[in-house]
């Protein structure tokens, strides 16, 4: 079983603050981290490998410094990493990103399963996983909360929906994207850290993966961000209820009834 895990480097928000003036996240001094959802993808891959054998390859498309998230992947059990980095990838939207990642999966070769996180916390699009599947022409399962079984031919995955779940059997090779329910990511061991430090991680350019220059980066991105704005502020006069419990409840009900909310 050869599994590729796609991880993204995102700005960490652990101690992020919102600028009260601009309503934007203050990014200065915020360090980049692995997209939290991708840690579940990594854990899922490593668990499958531990049970069924094979190899886990972690990959990311990003600037050279994104190599740190690949090392992080190796500390928790990935066997090796591949960094996709090239100025030509700059400005990629989800179409172009999923194309580049699909080309990398082709170049890695003999891949049975690609695992992505449910979504990246900076873009929040959840499009790259299904995009990779579509570029490769593979089936997919998104929002996977449980891998019930996997063989060389098929994977049985439980998909989460708003109204419950369904269990599906998908022919391999395939792409899945995972949600937090699927597992509890392990903590890295010292041995893992050492392995990660020593590991040679190759960087592949657009040419290395045989990407069509027209389909990557800005060229290959059908969408353009034309404008960004802070969200409309809340025009509010807030009310603080500071009395006894009885008083507070009475005032609260008043506030709700005035607005016909109860």
């Amino acid at each position, binding site marked *: 079983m050869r599994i590729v895990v796609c991880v993204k480097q995102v700005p960490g*928000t652990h101690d992020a603050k*919102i600028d009260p003036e601009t309503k934007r996240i203050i990014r200065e001094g915020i360090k980049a981290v692995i997209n939290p959802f991708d840690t579940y993808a990594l854990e899922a891959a490593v668990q499958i490998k531990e049970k069924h054998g094979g190899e886990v390859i972690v990959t990311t498309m990003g600037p050279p410094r994104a190599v740190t998230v690949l090392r992080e992947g190796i500390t928790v059990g990935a066997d090796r990493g591949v960094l996709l980095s090239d100025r030509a990838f700059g400005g990629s939207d989800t179409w172009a990103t999923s194309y580049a990642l699909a080309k990398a999966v082709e170049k890695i070769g003999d891949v049975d399963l690609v695992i992505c996180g449910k979504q990246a916390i900076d873009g929040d699009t959840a*499009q790259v996983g299904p995009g990779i599947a579509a570029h490769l022409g593979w089936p997919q399962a998104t929002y996977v909360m449980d891998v019930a079984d996997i063989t060389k031919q098929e994977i049985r995955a439980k998909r989460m929906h*708003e109204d*419950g*779940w369904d269990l599906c059997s*998908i022919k391999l090779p395939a792409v899945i994207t995972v949600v937090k329910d699927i597992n509890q990511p392990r903590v890295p061991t010292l041995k893992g850290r050492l392995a990660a430090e020593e590991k040679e991680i190759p960087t592949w350019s657009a040419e290395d993966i045989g990407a069509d220059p027209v389909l990557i980066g800005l060229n290959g991105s059908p969408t353009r961000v034309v404008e960004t704005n802070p969200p409309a502020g809340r025009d509010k006069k807030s009310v*603080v209820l500071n009395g006894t419990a009885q008083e507070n409840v009475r005032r609260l009900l008043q506030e709700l009834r005035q607005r016909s909310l109860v």
Partner: protein
Amino acid sequence: MIANTNETRAEYQHVWVVAEVMGGEIQKVTYELLGAARSLAEARKSEVWCVVLGHGVTAQSESLFHGGADVALVVDDEDFAEFVDEDQADVLTRLIREHKPEIVLCGATTRGRALIPRVAVVANCGLTADCTELGIDPENGDLLQTRPAFGGNIMATIRSADHRPQLATVRPRVMNELEPDTSRKGRLIEESVRPGERNGLKKILEVFTDTENAINLADARFIIAGGRGLRGPEGFRMLKDLAERVHGAVGASRAAVDSGWVPYYHQVGQTGQTVQATVYFACGISGQIQHLVGMQSCDFIIAIDKNPDTPLMQLADVAVVGDLFEIIPALIKELPKT
């Protein structure tokens, strides 16, 4: 499907809404999208089409017309009883090639977000996820798609100038449905799926519909959410009681979910769901940034906390200072079960 000359662009017409079907029923979000599509179609002087892939759905076309559709394009097929995204994407892509819509809207639900990215790749067009605002550029007729990025801290406006159709998923409960007009009529086009268009790579083995816990936070009008301040699962039973009385859904902070007091699908925030309720009522949640990004665009925010200085108490429209174990039971007493 690159259409960057004005002649090819002109071939792409009409605004499509891809219906959200669950258990054979067309969902509310579809009608919200029809409402949004009507104003776009008016600006573009074109029609609103609703595309329905499902089983036993043809009879529901009437209500689509009442909700604003001019055309219902229906593929009613047993194999669409369950959600097989690859097959639906194939069929949708084929319909797009055949009819050439200018704009395609779909709900930003687990199903919509699985289906539409495949269509975007194969049809080679741009897709903007989770839009909360849509407009038409008066200069060139392009669709202007506005969406929150970075968990709602930035609103980005996105355009896909050279590609048609322009695809967008739209968050539930953001657009307004029209008042149903039972005198509105429309055209029904029934398409059948030709053999060979299915690849059979996925089979649905089992479906579980969670009716007891069926909470669709994204769809809820009233959300009662609890955090670490609730101290345990009993606290959440109290919230559930309150939620039932206001016909609301129960939400939770990650601290409450991680403690095992409520299942993950109640979690609101960066690693949970983003919600847009009319009322968000937070009980014993301090409101760390990862929580706020999931709920700060709710219309009316109420918070109860012993500590008046928490971020959520600062953000709230009504901040109730006090012990939630006194306030909630008192509130429950005042609200009859209906």
